[in-house]
């Protein structure tokens, strides 16, 4: 009989009117890897933040090794052997690895003896787990994968017995994921307990021995991983059966309608982020861009959609030159020529979060009939139209008057899609269409994109989710350091192959 190392009883937590956790009961056994899966907003991170002492539960109790404990701050949790690797790393970027790790646990007022001892201890820990970290390196010089190791090392140094990881693989390449999983397995073999929060089914099946499923703030099921499968888990997460694969017909490729020649683009700091990129997209085709975040995809999409100036090279739409270094068409003019853009950063570029849904739905078309006449908005028409498209795109709740930020990520994305797809664009540029979007909505969004392709649109899809690239694209290019480092027709391509290209190795 294994005893639970961590036991949560009747945990409740609400933020204002939103109940993030309802009557959570959870037992986590010592020395296991326990998965917690659920859609975005299901309350996984909130629950773990309570365990880490960052948030305080409204009611309920927490036991560690059978002892009732109160966790009033992260300090209490750390002392009780709980460590957490957050989704957004909690590191000070201009500090060294060592400084980040000892922060809060310096052990002395003036740096001296303990500082040196910490360094020695950490070196040993690094060797034990094969972390390969330079303790004097500055965080901002480290890759994402290494920053994550710093976070893990930080928890271990502070004596964590239970290590919570919140969506640890979201920003990693497949190879980095392998490395991380290796580390987690070896930690488990050492007798540490690991709690893995994720929305990726494959990780649960790969790594965990037990899994708890959360939906809308509640735990809807516990099971041994061996007794379940991906389909069953997905159904539990969403509350209905979900299609995990995209239904896609054979490609009916048309003519080349969008062409990019020798394109280079600089970012705001005057660094060249896109280097001599050439690509062509045919009508009826989805071209996927794979790559780790920050390898020029953002700047490429911005240049193609007319938001960012082109440094050199040119862009052609239907054989007509639309942008080069001397002049470029602005997004509004491009829209008129049949080019639509779903920006990567939904909150910043896609929507005005404080506006009502119906305002965002017509934004960009607001000066056209029937939405306005002689510069005066026609609210009746707008509401009528909004009701219609919100139904069509299954935006929930179907309330055009609701402030946009009150919709979930998936529904916000549907609002953008409905706006951009409404005019049946000939070229569609899509960045991270399902980032932070729940499984149910992903299914819907993917289907819409496939429909657009089947109707003859040329689609450029940039995504850091390899699964998404692999399941939607007809052709895949990989970007690394601003350059296209590989192009593959999407037949029997594996994520391993792409992963090597993404890391700039192959």
């Amino acid at each position, binding site marked *: 009989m294994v005893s639970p190392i961590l036991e949560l009883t009747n945990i409740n937590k609400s933020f204002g009117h939103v109940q993030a956790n309802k009557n959570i009961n959870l037992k986590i056994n010592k020395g296991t890897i326990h998965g917690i899966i659920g859609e975005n907003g299901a309350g996984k991170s909130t629950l773990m933040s309570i365990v880490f002492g960052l948030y305080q539960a409204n009611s309920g109790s927490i036991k560690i090794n059978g002892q009732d404990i109160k966790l009033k701050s992260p300090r209490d949790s750390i002392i009780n052997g709980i460590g957490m690797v957050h989704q957004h790393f909690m590191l000070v970027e201009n500090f060294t690895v060592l400084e*980040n790790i000892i922060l*809060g646990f310096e052990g002395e007022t003036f740096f001296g003896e303990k500082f040196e001892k910490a360094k020695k201890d950490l070196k040993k820990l690094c060797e034990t787990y094969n972390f390969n970290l330079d303790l004097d390196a500055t965080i901002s010089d480290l890759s994402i994968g290494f920053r994550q190791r710093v976070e893990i090392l930080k928890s271990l140094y502070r004596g964590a017995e239970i290590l919570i990881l919140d969506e640890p693989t979201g920003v990693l390449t497949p190879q980095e994921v392998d490395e991380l999983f290796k580390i987690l397995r070896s930690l488990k073999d050492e007798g540490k307990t690991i709690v893995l929060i994720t929305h990726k089914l494959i990780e649960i099946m790969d790594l965990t021995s037990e899994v708890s499923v959360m939906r809308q703030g509640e735990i809807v099921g516990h099971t041994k991983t061996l007794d379940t499968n991906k389909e069953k888990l997905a159904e539990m997460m969403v509350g209905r059966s979900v299609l995990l694969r995209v239904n896609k017909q054979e490609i009916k490729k048309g003519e080349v309608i969008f062409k990019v020649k020798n394109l280079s683009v600089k970012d705001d700091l005057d660094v060249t982020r896109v280097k001599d990129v050439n690509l062509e997209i045919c009508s009826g085709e989805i071209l996927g861009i794979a790559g780790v975040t920050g390898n020029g995809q953002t700047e490429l999409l911005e240049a193609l959609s007319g938001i960012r100036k082109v440094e050199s090279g040119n862009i052609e739409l239907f054989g007509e030159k639309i942008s080069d270094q001397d002049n470029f068409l602005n997004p509004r003019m491009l829209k008129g020529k049949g080019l639509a853009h779903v920006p990567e950063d939904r909150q910043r570029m896609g929507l005005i979060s404080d506006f009502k849904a119906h305002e965002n739905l017509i934004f960009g078309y607001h000066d056209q009939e029937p939405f306005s006449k002689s510069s005066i908005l026609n609210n009746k028409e707008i509401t009528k139209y909004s009701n219609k498209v919100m139904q069509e795109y299954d935006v929930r709740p179907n309330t055009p008057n609701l402030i946009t930020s009150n919709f979930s990520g998936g529904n916000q994305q549907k609002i953008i899609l409905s706006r951009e797809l409404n005019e049946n664009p000939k070229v569609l540029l899509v960045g991270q269409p399902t980032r932070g979007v729940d499984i149910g909505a992903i299914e819907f969004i993917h289907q819409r994109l496939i429909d657009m392709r089947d109707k003859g649109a040329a689609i450029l899809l940039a995504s850091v989710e390899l699964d998404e690239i692999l399941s939607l694209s007809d052709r895949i290019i990989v970007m690394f350091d601003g350059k296209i480092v590989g192009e593959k027709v999407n037949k029997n391509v594996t994520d391993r192959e792409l992963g090597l290209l993404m890391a700039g190795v192959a």
Partner: protein
Amino acid sequence: MEFLSDIASLINSTLRISTPLIFAAMAGIFAERSGVIDFSLEGKMLMAAFVAAVGSYYLGNPWLGLLLAIIACVCLSMLHGFASVTHKGDQVVSCVAINILIIGLTTALAAAWFGQAGLTPTLTENQRFLEINLPFADALREVPIIGIIYSDILSGHYVFVYLAYLSVPIVFWIVFKTSFGLRLRAVGENPSAVDTAGINVFTMRYKALAVNGVLIAFAGAHLSTAVNANFFREMSAGRGYLALAAMIFGKWHPKTALIACLLFGFTDALQIRLQGVELPAIGEIPVQLIQALPYILTVVLLAGFVGKAIAPNAIGQPYIKER
């Protein structure tokens, strides 16, 4: 020889004039490194000048005046913290409010207590700080070079001048070589990282503001109980803002901030020296233009000479723990 003594007196004035700037810049470093903007250096300096003068007048001891000034400035820092750290108000607005409040308050209190708007009674020698002559200063005066450096430049300053230059290495050491400094810098860069390390972000910022209050009090006391023998209306005369500029120019680093303060102090000293002097080929420069020199320099330096000053990452942002 006259040229040499001119230079010596110029350097001497530079050291003296830079003193309040240095205290204020060091105070600013503590607040801003912790992520709290401090435009209220100006107001606090004025408050300290007033409280030090009044305290010293009634209590008969300038050190007690300084102590009261410290208490007053720490209170003002706490007020700033209460508005902008605890209640997450806009930090700039809070500072502006403090500055305006202090200008009015000091003038009004002076009028109520002493019958003169914005003026406190002149302090006697016992009630103010006097210049300190270093040992053997007179004996060494005639020795070439050393005499000038020791007796004419280094000796004969108020205690605050020495303290200001002493404060720079101490601040450097605290900020970069102690665990308090590590936490201070971390809380201004990424407060979430500090919170998850089990340190209270709010407490950290209040501590930083308390140190800020102590340091700025020295600047004010220097003005009203050392250089001058009373408080007069708006006597801080923009030094708080100038110090803030020096701190930014010095990239939130004590050493470079010191250099910036000295530069501003030097232009001010030069400005005083140049008044009424006929320069060859140019003639006499209008006083107004010369007086504007330090400020012109500020604008020019900040506008481009220094390169991009990178502020602490989380500066100006109140820490919100729960969404």
